[in-house]
């Protein structure tokens, strides 16, 4: 049996067969990204609507479970170290472990990294390895370009497996950078399973509080465009160094 099926966003769309007000329905559907005007079979959703929801969730699940490939890290010359996360299940249950680097990691980065760099770049899978796979190829070169244009010098970048945002503080203690930027996968939503955030901090140390961090979130092709985000990060880091501050204390 040969059957070839191609789905696009249009194919998934379901509609109410005989709405009271056809133009009105179209205007209502257009007014919100919520899944409305989808119709029903008695009290249950139509098949395509249901499968689309399951498909979006499937992407989110895969994003949480996925790993950043070796090729991706090699392409940007990033070596990889681990936090104390142990495995995916422990990572999800124990956020505290993702905030601390393993002993091996501490040793490795002490050996390999430039100490007291002006800008420390760190990449981490966080809750979505897919976010890194999707966006790093655009964000990273744009970030390096913007550092150069701003006259800022990066140290030795690396990748952290099983990282949480606050692993910045531990890395800050070890390498004492002037500013640190962490590119990390966000918790996947149904709208996007590969959204990345850039967390930035001036002199991150143990005990840094959330409001000391500056964040650019929602970085993905349909959100904050990755290339623009990369360039913007350079500008923000420069401001932090000039003002010796980050987070809520940074003046825009």
């Amino acid at each position: 049996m040969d059957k070839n099926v191609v789905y696009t966003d249009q194919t998934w769309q379901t509609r109410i067969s005989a709405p009271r007000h056809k133009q009105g329905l179209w205007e209502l559907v257009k007014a919100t990204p919520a899944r409305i005007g989808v119709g029903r079979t008695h009290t249950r959703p139509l098949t395509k609507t249901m499968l689309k929801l399951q498909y979006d969730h499937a992407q989110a699940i895969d994003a949480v479970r996925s790993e950043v490939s070796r090729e991706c890290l090699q392409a940007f010359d990033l070596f990889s170290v681990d936090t104390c996360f142990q495995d995916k299940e422990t990572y999800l249950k124990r956020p505290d472990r993702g905030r601390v680097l393993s002993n091996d990691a501490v040793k490795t980065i002490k050996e390999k990294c430039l100490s007291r760099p002006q800008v420390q770049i760190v990449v981490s899978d966080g809750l979505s390895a897919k976010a890194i796979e999707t966006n790093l190829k655009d964000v990273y070169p744009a970030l390096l370009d913007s550092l150069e244009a701003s006259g800022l010098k990066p140290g030795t970048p690396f990748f952290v497996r099983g990282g949480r945002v606050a692993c910045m503080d531990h890395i800050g203690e070890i390498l004492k950078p002037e500013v640190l930027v962490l590119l990390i996968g966000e918790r996947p939503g149904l709208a996007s399973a590969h959204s990345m955030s850039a967390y930035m901090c001036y002199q991150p140390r143990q005990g840094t509080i959330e409001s000391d961090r500056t964040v650019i979130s929602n970085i993905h092709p349909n959100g904050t465009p990755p290339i623009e985000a990369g360039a913007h990060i350079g500008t923000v880091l420069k401001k932090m160094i000039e003002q010796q501050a980050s987070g809520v204390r940074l003046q825009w």
Partner: protein
Amino acid sequence: MKTTITLLNKTYQFNNVKELLAKANEEKSGDQLAGIQAKDAEERLAARHLLAELTLSDIREHPVIPPEEDEVSRLIDEAVDEKVYQIIRNWSLAELREYLLSSQVTGKEIDWIRNGLTSEMIAAVTKIMSNMDLIQAAGKIAVETHCRHTIGQKGVLAGRAQPNHPTDDLNGIKASMYEALSYGVGDAVIGVNPVDDTPDNIKKILTMIKEEIEKWKIPTQNCVLGHVTTQMRAITEGAPADLMFQSLAGTEAANEAFGIRIDLLDEANELIHKAGTAKGPNRWYFETGQGSELSSSAHHGVDQVTLEARCYGLARKYKPFIVNTVVGFIGPEYLYDSKQVIRAALEDHFMGKMHGLPMGVDVCYTNHMKADQNDMENLALLLGTAGVNFLIGVPMADDCMLNYQSTSYHDIASVREILGLRPAPDFESWLEQMGIMNNGRLTEMAGDPSLFYTV
């Protein structure tokens, strides 16, 4: 109070009631994160055996958080009806469980006994009840409340329409709200979570919903779920609000992290009764959920079931119209998988009803939890059989503003259909007038939001 128990030849020791309560819990990642869980499955059962033998007075006399340190503890202890307590104080928790489940005991007896119980006693008995126990006992308790209209009657399953929008766009909110109404959802409340928590914005959304309620004569109530202080300012500036909303936690310190204290809630209570737009006695909408105290490091080493019960001890002071436990929102570090979410939902629903509260449940999960929509459908049906007052309705279960999945408008209609439940009576009459429902079933016209579209 040091306690020991010997099961066959093995002896277990627990240093205090707080430790015993924690170790008797079903497995929860939040208790593991707090480092207070049982070492293994056998110790968990040793704790449960021992807990079953403790008396109600043992629980009361060994408070998990001393009243002198915490205003929630004080409130709960002072609310005990001493006459009832004296009658039951020597009951063991095993006896309390069997009393609640016995065929002679109905909602009427439970209405009486609750006056002698503290939140901690209710939490304690929950730990020695199985899931089916929790469903059967909760099913005896009907809690009717009245704001603009009445919900909570036996056989009624109401729904909150939750028409959130990522930028609070009024037309977007309206569109999603029309979809809800066309599925017969919105009798509990039309309630929006705002992105922008400012008085002006809250007033704007409340006003829009109010105008729609008046235009279509919808028998429901409006609410915008901002911080209580923002709502107070909006209402003082003339915003039309039927309900006041606030998230609650089970300790004074965790409530401080939420920016609230009992005296602030008292002030808000006075305002909503004076300046609110509803006439009924029940003017509050509270939300709770296991894990919030630990997330603000304000848990005092107490387990998340006991802390959740204390939220209800606080909530009942204000005779709320609806209380909603947002059961899977907080993430896998508190409830790891669907098994834990289902257990927590049944515990919360039972504990809330034991406090005499009009309990609803946000049957929900985030994408990094080990759960999916099938789990939520299972849980929605379980809660329907337990007599839950309301469920949350979100377009196709996907909240495009809060970024989590809950139950859908379709799901609420389906739970009613499968279990023979009905919308709130006033709301059902209105649905019939609108041609959306007939004899408790959706009509051909249902599910079409353009029914409410006007040029």
